[in-house]
């Protein structure tokens, strides 16, 4: 019934050294963790390694989990940090965009989408899986993460703010920008995932 309470029980058992409890937690969260890694790294192979690394680190850091946020929020935050560390190390060779958006400052206006250059029937109805994938991969990494957390994981703004360490206002504006950029990528046809520069800020 109460999933949160059951999960809390499992977490407490895992902290106390019950590895099968931790295994159950992993089974319950592996799809979320794997897909976040997949979205961030852009590669199935890297996503596999990153997910394993994130879970192993979570196991070692369990004693530090204070139950102040939900377990999945804590796990997402840890996973996202593991991925960002990885992207920093790997920035030169990666085949997905590792840029962070640079338009997060409060008060900055959202730019209007380009006037639609294509007839309506050519738009999303005809988007293939691959084109959407490419449009997603071409987004800056912070846009990819926030769309994953919001659209796929259906997390409330508050949780997203906790995971990414940003205020709710920034969650909202970043989501709006991410969506506008995603649409631009879809429309432009210039979905080249080979993105240029990478500037990873310390955060």
């Amino acid at each position: 019934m109460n999933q949160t309470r059951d999960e809390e029980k499992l977490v407490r058992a895992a902290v106390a050294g019950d590895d099968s409890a931790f295994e159950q937690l992993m089974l319950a969260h592996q799809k979320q963790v794997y897909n976040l890694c997949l979205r961030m790294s852009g590669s199935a192979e890297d996503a596999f390694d990153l997910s394993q690394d994130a879970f192993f680190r979570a196991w070692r850091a369990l004693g530090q989990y204070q139950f102040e946020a939900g377990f999945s929020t804590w796990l997402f935050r840890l996973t996202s940090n593991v991925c960002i560390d990885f992207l920093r190390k790997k920035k030169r060779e990666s085949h997905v965009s590792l840029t962070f958006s640079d338009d997060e400052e409060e008060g900055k206006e959202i730019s209007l989408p380009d006037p639609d250059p294509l007839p309506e029937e050519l738009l999303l109805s005809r988007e293939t899986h691959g084109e959407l994938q490419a449009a997603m991969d071409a987004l800056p990494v912070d846009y990819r993460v926030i769309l994953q957390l919001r659209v796929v994981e259906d997390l409330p703004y508050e949780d997203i703010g906790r995971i990414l360490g940003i205020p709710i206002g920034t969650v909202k504006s970043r989501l709006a920008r991410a969506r506008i950029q995603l649409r631009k990528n879809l429309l432009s046809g210039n979905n080249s995932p080979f993105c240029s520069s990478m500037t990873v800020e310390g955060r």
Partner: protein
Amino acid sequence: MMCEEALTLISAKLDGALTKQEDDALQAHLEHCPECRRVLQELTDAENGIHELQADPPDTLVPGVMKKIRREREKRAERKGFFWSAGVLVSAAAVLAILFGMGLIKLPGFDRDAPATAAIGHVYEIAGSDEHESAARIADERDCAVLVVLSKGKTLPELEGMEYQTMDDGARLYVTDNTVLSGIETAYRGDYAITVYEPAGPYSTDASAEACVLLAP
């Protein structure tokens, strides 16, 4: 309403985060703005599509982590064994010294039932084992040494005023440096049970490098 404002509202609408008032205002705008209507439709389609990009993790993911965890447990067990044998050696040496001092010792024979306990407590003792699993974890996680002090609820003047994190078992975790760590180790090894946990991999022993002190209740 300008299109710019509408775009922010469209994003919030997709999140189901609009108030009734905002929703009405957006609807009014959409009715006479085909461009924004199109944006809403396209984004709705795109977000439905994003769900289809999700993949199933390989079956080997969780078993792989479990394997790593078992290996880590074995490593820790070895480490713990090392601390125990070190402790036993030190205690034995202290017993020998006392017996020798009292003129009771008869080498090479050494009776296990000799009145030895008097010496223990004044030597480098081993802090409790299982409850400090977390210390080994912290050492590995932070790549630094962790000094566990069974201070029985007392705080140490060296740590006064420093920030600490309270662990689930009530232990206090102080993040400090190697100078403080070795100072405490030297000053209190006669008074409290003390254990140092080291990370499995290499770590810095520089005086100013990070080190942790865990005050166990």
